[in-house]
């Protein structure tokens, strides 16, 4: 995105952060604090998917990294008595190492095949809980995971807000630096990239492992917040939904995953008793993105912003003309 186009997002982002930090928890009820905390976790996950996407790989198995991070962290805390504060980063590192490991065979695959392999990877990780039911709680799930704080939601809110901001900062920095430029190069033309000395497979593995790290972190955050995880929490549907959040929010902009996640995660909750119908609304949003706003929701904002600017320009020039 051009410099001028990023301005409205920056301003909006700063205002939103201030609101969330200072005003939010004071005036809203516990229910909304809980929602916001969940949104933070998923924003971390979707943004981590974005950096994989930016390198040209469309992954349908990203929640598997959340699973690896979440389960590793939960098991370390529950069975080995680690403090959740230490277990969470450990989970993230475990996820990152898995990312590097599967990056080697998978990052050489062309787009469609990589997507299928990633879907399979997600399925595989989900099914692996069956291997050590004593540790993982198998299909019933792992319960009574040690939590970060006591019963009040507010400390979680702030902790995850900070965690999300750090994640976004790191990912933003990477994306807009030489490494990010290299990722985007490989996505656009692997021929050009490799003939300029870029190790295509290596860069893709890097993207995957960074994405895996932050996904693992978000998985651990979820585990120590909710206290319970099961294979379904991070299974195939969540992986697919992460991609939907990303594409619906907008794949061309860094703010895409943030907006997409916020809107689509909150949808079931604002529907109250019609919660069962929420997926229909998600499907409608997907269809809207496909047919009306292919660049995602963020493109709506940029379109509005540029139209407003155009009108201002026109008003200014007409003033001078008359």
């Amino acid at each position, binding site marked *: 995105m051009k410099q001028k186009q990023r301005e409205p997002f920056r301003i909006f982002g700063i205002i939103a952060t201030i609101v969330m930090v200072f005003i939010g928890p004071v005036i809203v009820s516990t229910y909304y604090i809980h929602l916001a905390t969940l949104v933070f976790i998923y924003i971390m996950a979707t943004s981590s998917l974005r950096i994989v996407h930016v390198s040209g790989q469309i992954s349908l198995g990203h929640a598997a990294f959340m699973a690896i991070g979440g389960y590793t962290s939960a098991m370390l805390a529950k069975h080995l008595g680690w403090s959740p504060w230490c277990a969470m980063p450990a989970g993230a590192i475990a996820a990152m190492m898995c990312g590097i490991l599967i990056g080697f065979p998978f990052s050489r695959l062309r787009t469609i095949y990589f997507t299928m392999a990633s879907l399979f990877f997600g399925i595989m990780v989900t099914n692996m809980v069956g291997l050590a039911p004593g540790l993982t709680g198998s299909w019933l799930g792992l319960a009574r995971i040690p939590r970060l704080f006591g019963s009040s939601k507010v400390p979680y809110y702030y902790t995850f807000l900070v965690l999300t901001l750090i994640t976004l900062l790191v990912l933003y920095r990477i994306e807009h630096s*030489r490494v990010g430029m290299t990722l985007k190069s490989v996505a656009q033309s692997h021929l050009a990239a490799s003939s300029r000395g870029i190790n295509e497979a290596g860069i893709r593995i890097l993207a995957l492992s960074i994405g895996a790290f932050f996904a693992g972190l978000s998985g651990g955050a979820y585990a120590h917040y909710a206290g319970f995880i099961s294979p379904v929490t991070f299974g195939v549907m969540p992986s697919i939904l992460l991609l939907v959040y990303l594409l619906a929010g907008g794949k061309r902009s860094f703010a895409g995953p943030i907006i997409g996640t916020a809107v689509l995660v909150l949808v079931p909750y604002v529907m109250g008793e019609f919660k069962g119908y929420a997926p229909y609304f998600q499907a409608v949003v997907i269809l809207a993105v496909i047919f009306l706003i292919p660049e995602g929701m963020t493109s709506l904002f940029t379109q509005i912003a540029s139209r407003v600017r155009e009108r201002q320009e026109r008003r200014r020039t007409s003033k001078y003309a008359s």
Partner: protein
Amino acid sequence: MLLRTSNLTKRFGGLSAVSGVDICVEEGQIVGLIGPNGAGKTTLINLVSGFLRPTTGSVFFDGRDVTGKKPHLLARMGIGRTFQITPIFGEFTAFKNIVASFYLSADRSLVGSLFNTSTYRKKESSIDDLAEESLRLVGLTGVRNELARNLPHGYQRVLDLAMALAIKPKLLLLDEPVSGMSQDEIELALNAIRKVHAQGTTVLLVEHNISIVMGLCDHIVVIDYGCKIAEGSPDEVRKDEHVIRAYFGGDYAA
């Protein structure tokens, strides 16, 4: 001898695209590779730049055996190339395309990018200057901020050339650098190639247009049906009867 191939052969199934080709390129030369359509010229370039693996035979660059090495490794050793299909980074501006191509000169570490270290900043700043210089060299300063995918075809080819230069190649392989260009664009491209050669880069170019090759190159290699059928100076090749037969059919042999 900068580039040497020895008995280079590439078979696809039963078909030999390139057979037993031996070529030598000395440092500082501009060598032209010509031959009728389908003779195997692009295959040869692909073999030398690592995009294809030879069935048999070897490639030696700068004294080292580089047979079968991956393209990015050859790029790091100093082999640069352009493509017929001009792969460029469409979503980037012309300027950013070149900046991106200076990958090898940048601070590629994650730490540098993440923490904006002084080494990182210094290198990026010098890359920006080098990229500007590159644009000026090939004559594309006017379209600096255009998205690469919006550029006319000829400009894209020249941009491809500038990008290839970013790796500071010792050997530059050009695959039909002026095909499909208008007369003005051809002038632009040829000027750029001459300047690049004048600065000391060895050039091996594949081209259809014989008159361009005759005017530009000091040594020519002729390929037909995957085999080398002649080589020498432009005058020698012009008179070679094998070449004449290959291009014009049997009746025109002198």
